[in-house]
């Protein structure tokens, strides 16, 4: 028996994820079913099964720096079909959270991050998503001013664009939720 079996070892990436999320990526045997059913693979640098493998071998930087975690649509097809019951879509959430915290997100995720921040910014301010306000903030953040300019008048004429936001009455209650959940876990 060598001594290192008993010595406390630093948690591997997969062990760390398992401890925090209850999802054990080590169960993945690389069958590729998640990748076969993933609708977003054409937009990803690594396939979902490759991300599982990167986690297994402890290649943190490649997993957290991938475009994959950001182009995952959270459609849950992978989690539904995994024969090993690995919650792959939920792993993507956990990887996104880490990538954000460690400021490692891929440059190609810029517009997606701008969208997520604009969405949550709108909810934090009024407790409800104000679509028009969110789109304006997104366009500023993403420096994307000209997409869908032809769609906007048609939507406006059909009463789909509400210029005034509807707010919850207790804005403080929602603002507190954002404060208390910031930077947790």
């Amino acid at each position: 028996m060598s001594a290192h079996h008993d010595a406390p070892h630093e948690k591997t990436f997969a062990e760390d994820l398992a401890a925090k999320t209850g999802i054990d990526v080590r169960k993945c045997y690389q069958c590729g079913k998640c990748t076969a059913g993933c609708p977003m693979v054409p937009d990803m640098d690594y396939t979902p099964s490759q991300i599982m493998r990167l986690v297994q071998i402890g290649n943190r930087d490649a997993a957290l720096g991938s475009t994959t975690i950001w182009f995952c649509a959270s459609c849950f097809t992978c989690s539904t079909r995994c024969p090993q019951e690995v919650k792959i879509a939920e792993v993507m959430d956990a990887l996104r959270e880490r990538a954000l915290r460690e400021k490692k997100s891929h440059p190609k995720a810029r517009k997606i991050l701008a969208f997520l921040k604009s969405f949550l910014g709108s909810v934090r301010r009024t407790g409800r998503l104000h679509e028009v306000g969110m789109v304006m903030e997104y366009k500023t953040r993403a420096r994307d001013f000209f997409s869908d300019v032809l769609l906007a008048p048609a939507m406006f004429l059909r009463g789909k664009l509400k210029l005034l936001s509807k707010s919850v009455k207790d804005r403080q209650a929602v603002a507190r939720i954002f404060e208390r959940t910031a930077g947790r876990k």
Partner: protein
Amino acid sequence: MATGYFPGCSLEGTAAEFDMSIRCLAQALDLELREIDDWNCCGASAAHQTNHLLGLALPARTIALAAAQGLEEIFAPCAACSNRLIAAQAEWLGDAGVRAEVERAIDMALPAAPVPVRNCIDFLLPHIEKIKTAVTRPLAGKKVACYYGCLLVRPPKVLAFDDPENPTSMETVAAATGAEPVAWGFRTECCGAAFAMSSTASVERLCERILVNAKAEGAHMVIVACPLCHANLDMRQPKGMALPVLYLTQLVGLAVGVAPKALGLKKHITPVAAAIA
């Protein structure tokens, strides 16, 4: 039993016609809806993708409010809202530590017993006989492609609603109107969801294959029960497609004799009039 109505943010904006058709239909079928007072955004995918606890706490506040207001179940017509409410609740029901953490975040007590949450199909299913009796304008000859997308059926262990690979509940409701559901291959394929602006090309790619298949199988229209599916399929159609996309509540509303304008059928980007004539 008092049902709490949780319209969600989209139904106050881009999906106003979903809300209009639900309220008309509830009235026509004599179903009582009480809007949850001071409900807030469920956080949708943006919250759970970036902050797990926020993704639990935002739905939790609305569920706690509903329980405090004496509502025994929640009807959340938006697929993302119903999905998030069910998924969040499942997490704290199975873990006292999570429950305590969420209660701390919202500064409210969560109800001890689960509050049942119904999506749009689930809300209509128990009233199928009532719908059949109420039909005054049967939609015979209308071929409809029922589209579920992702969040009505996945993840199945959490939602426990219908078969995730071969669901049939929406077809059951649609058939009650006299319409003819077609068999097709993209019923549970993703539309690209929230990437409408941040990766528009992805949404166009995914919507195209869904719409092309529905049309190829002879559908006159696509039926949905999710505002995001509707926005993407209605607004991101390839040139020359012109396949109308209706909410399930609009289809049923038409059959029970509600006027098309009251159902918001003029609010769609892809014109509907010819398909429902």
